């Protein structure tokens, strides 16, 4: 595998007669930040589930060099009968680190809350905290910023980038938000509707200082990208 964290070759997935993924091929380097971008139901979650070993491909091959996978599920998937801190302890029993991450996520005073008394965004933050807690070498994010307000989202994104610089995990993200995608990733893969093929790869060659929602290079890139999407998807 060498410098690659992930090699995908001609990957296909069918659920019964429903063909979801059709012949995807691409590689992901170690430490790369990749975003999958595509219409609802095109197989993004399915792909992430294949990567994390929860689903088997129908055809094709996928090679993964990662050991520790942190995954932010599209639905928070918290254990309902455990409070926040116990939910985190479930994946790693290190209270110091847990408290640290909860603080960053602005959840310190909710340690003993059960998931049913958390707001949607708070659950999502616990979900994120869990993924970061284990110091993953592959971080999988399936719409991680759902229900988060702009300020919270910005802070968390910055934090993810900071950790990335420090420990250099590989990042696989799914999002429907163009800004998020451009802000975080080194490359965006654009997918077609189901049965889904890879439409285009979009390298994001922004410098660090250009990664600012109001920077002109950012806005230009955003415009181009949106035009590209809209031109490709006449119908959803």
């Amino acid at each position, binding site marked *: 595998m060498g410098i690659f964290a992930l090699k995908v070759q001609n990957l296909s997935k069918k659920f019964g007669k429903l063909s979801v993924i059709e012949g995807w091929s691409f590689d992901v380097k170690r430490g790369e930040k990749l975003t999958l971008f595509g219409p609802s139901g095109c197989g993004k979650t399915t792909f992430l589930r294949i990567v994390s070993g929860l689903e088997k491909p129908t055809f094709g091959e996928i090679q993964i060099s990662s050991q520790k996978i942190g995954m932010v599920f599209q639905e928070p998937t918290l254990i309902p*009968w455990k409070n926040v801190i116990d939910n985190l302890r479930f994946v790693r029993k290190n209270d110091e680190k847990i408290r640290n991450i909860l603080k960053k996520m602005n959840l310190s005073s909710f340690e003993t809350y059960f998931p049913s008394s958390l707001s949607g965004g708070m659950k999502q933050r616990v979900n994120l905290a869990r993924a970061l807690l284990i110091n993953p070498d592959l971080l999988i994010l399936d719409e991680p910023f759902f229900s988060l307000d702009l300020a919270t989202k910005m802070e968390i994104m910055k934090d993810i980038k900071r950790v990335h610089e420090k420990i250099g995990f590989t990042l696989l993200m799914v999002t429907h938000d163009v800004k998020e995608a451009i802000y975080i990733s080194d490359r965006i893969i654009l997918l077609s509707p189901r049965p889904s093929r890879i439409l285009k790869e979009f390298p994001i060659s922004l410098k660090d200082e250009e990664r600012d929602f109001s920077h002109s290079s950012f806005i230009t890139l955003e415009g181009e990208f949106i035009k590209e999407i809209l031109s490709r998807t006449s119908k959803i």
Partner: protein
Amino acid sequence: MKTLIGIVALLLAWQIISLMIGATLILPTPYQTFEALIKLFGEVDTFSAILSTIWKSFLTLLLVMGIGIPIGVMMGSNDSLYEFIRPGVMVIQSVPIISWLALVIFLWGIGWRGPILISFLSLLPTAIFTSASGMKNVDKSLLEMAKVYNVSRKDVLKDVYLGSIMPFILATFEVSVGSVWKVMIMAEYLCGGSGIGVLISWARQYVDVPQIYALTFIAVIIGLSTERISRFYAKKAFKKWEFSL
């Protein structure tokens, strides 16, 4: 409060039915039973019998929960094991006690072990099957999460499965606590050395029907109160599961 009304309603129904039947040898009135009860409490035998039944039932419950739940959990988490063990449990479940009473007496004699074995075997299948179906009811997405995070099998059992089967275990517990008395008394009746069931068998011998009903009444009272107490503690112990609902 409502429970109290329920109990009063029950006593009333009893009184009315016994008046309708009008044969105290078949169904004594609550009053006659009460008289017999008073008489029973005058005898020291009664207390030792009650104690004997209580500790045996308690031990039986412990055994049922302690053995039935783990077996159910194992069966529920492995389909092959499930299919393999099921016939045995089914046999225990469908063979009437009278068919193997001699075997029990042979193995355990007349005394405390026979009744415990019989009641244990009577309650076990329910405990096993209920916890097994609890296991099959586990939220798959939580299991997937645990898999991705490489959580140890032990922790998954403790934190995910145990939590999911908790409502089922509570149901089993409730059912077992409720019926252990009936089962234990029947077992004592058949092969017990002491206990309420033995007293009932003696009372039946000399057709002292009010006494039979008085002894039954004691059993019911013990049953109702232990159920109360155990519910209270069970609720406390499993309080966190309440939050999740």
